[in-house]
């Protein structure tokens, strides 16, 4: 039984159809990537899972039907969604942003201990805890968004285009951190990326979307060898 399962999910923005029946699954402990060009429906897929978009079809998470509920309901079940643009609170401090990560989680737990543990992955945060999040650099903001998601102890982490607007070295660091979190904490990750090279490097499996449909799916190795994927998304 997969942790997350989408079955024939359709979504639309007003009259414009964005998803034409997507089916995908993520198992516990996996890193899965969703690849595709602009407008392929990658972001909409994540938004559908988070109930931020009107959908039809079935979405199951941890054995519960979560389609057409509310973003807060899905979040409280243990889905941490770091949206495009990171969704930080620019006027709140780094530390306050982190604290916000823990307000919605269901099991109590010790925020201080969790914060300490996850800040270990981003040592600079300790020194900058009073700084407004809006004044951090793009890479730092993405790390903070990731740290905030982790403090909520999610069962599933969803990242929407984490590499967007970041320098290549920062992107590599970010994905290295995601890989470590997966290996050391057993974190399940669903990541949407345009940068297919780096996403396939970290993910074990991937789905390639084209105009709102799954065009290709397979393990990262298979996709790296797949001729169409190579030509369209990897550039060689």
């Amino acid at each position, binding site marked *: 039984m997969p942790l997350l399962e989408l079955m024939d999910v359709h979504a639309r923005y007003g009259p414009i159809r964005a998803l034409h029946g997507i089916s995908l699954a993520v198992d516990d402990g996996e890193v899965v990537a969703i690849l595709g060009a602009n407008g392929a429906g990658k972001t909409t897929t994540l938004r559908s899972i988070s109930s931020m978009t009107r959908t039809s079809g079935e979405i199951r998470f941890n054995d519960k039907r979560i389609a057409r509920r509310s973003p807060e309901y899905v979040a409280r079940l243990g889905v941490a969604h770091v949206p495009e643009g990171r969704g930080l609170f620019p006027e709140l*401090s780094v530390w*306050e942003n982190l604290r916000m990560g823990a*307000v919605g989680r269901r099991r109590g737990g010790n925020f201080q201990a969790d914060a300490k543990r996850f800040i270990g992955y981003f040592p600079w945060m300790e020194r900058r805890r009073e700084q407004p999040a809006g004044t951090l650099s793009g*890479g730092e903001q993405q790390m903070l968004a990731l740290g905030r998601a982790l403090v*909520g102890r999610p069962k599933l982490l969803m990242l929407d285009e984490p590499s967007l607007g970041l320098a290549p070295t920062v992107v590599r660091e970010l994905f290295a951190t995601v890989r470590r979190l997966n290996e050391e904490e057993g974190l399940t990750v669903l990541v949407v990326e345009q940068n297919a090279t780096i996403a396939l490097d970290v993910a074990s499996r991937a789905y390639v979307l084209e105009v709102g449909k799954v065009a290709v799916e397979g393990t990262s190795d298979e996709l790296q060898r797949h001729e169409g994927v190579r030509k369209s998304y990897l550039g060689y």
Partner: protein
Amino acid sequence: MAIPARPALPQLDVSPHVRALILAAAWTIGTLAVILLIGLVLTQTEDVFTWSGYIQQIVSGLAQGAIFASLALALVLIYRTTDILNFAQGEMAMFTTFIAWSLMNHMPYWPAFVLTLVIAFVGGAAIERVIIRPVEHRPEIVVVIVTIGLLIALNGLAPWIWGPEVKPFETPFSNGTTEIGGVVIAYQDLGVLAVTLATVLLLWAFFRFTTLGLVMRAVANSQDASRLLGVRVGWMLALGWGLAAMLGAIAGMMAAPTQFLDANLMLIILIYSFAAAVLGGIDSPVGAVVGGLILGVLINILGTYVDFIGGELRLPAAFVVLLVVLLIRPQGLFGHRVVRRV
């Protein structure tokens, strides 16, 4: 995997607390300087001018301004969380003051005061849930019309329930005056100042130090991001309306003893409070309080010392000041242009 150290910006060298302190000190010194300067001008222009009389006007202006500040704070609170200018804020305050009046016929002042705050909180939250929520996602103009409708409804409902005649309203403060260094100050003014400032401080502590306060600030920052973290945004908005209604109730109960209680108690006060909120920068709680106090002092001094303004032209005079400030500083005194880097 350390992030390469980035040279700190010069203005980030001091901690935000130190910067806030410096800012507060600068404001205090600046305000005192302005007060002194206006006083010095008045010694030249007025035939009979006493410094004690001048300071007396400032204190009663502060008391008046504290009432504007409470209501302005209520407006800012709702504006920040929901982007709505609540035109009914004043009438909600008036209505709760009538409820306080009814309660005070049956019990002593302070129990009635507290009970009124509770009723105001519940009522404010209920108004958000029942009246505002259905139109929340409609264009702003629709929401504004709804709040204006609420204004008219409450303005008509109050005399229908409590009768059209003006009512005297009890004050918990004694009627006399005290003298501090030759300045005669009414206990009423001191009491109003104390109550409103205590309220503002409590509210500040709530937002600054409690988790619920943090969540409300986050919702004001971004509703979508809050939802994705599992925050029940709807309830936070209702909570904001409840708190705003409480602030309004305090403003109403503080204004009623000197203004007398009828359905139009808050109409003019609401206009001043809008001006105060805009003067302070519509998104800044500190600005709303400072704006309210400045406006209160200003209209009092203008009304007293500038003959052609007198009692009648205070409101237009206040708006001339507002206009001048906004020409120089369009975001208001404390309104910020958000710092953001991508």
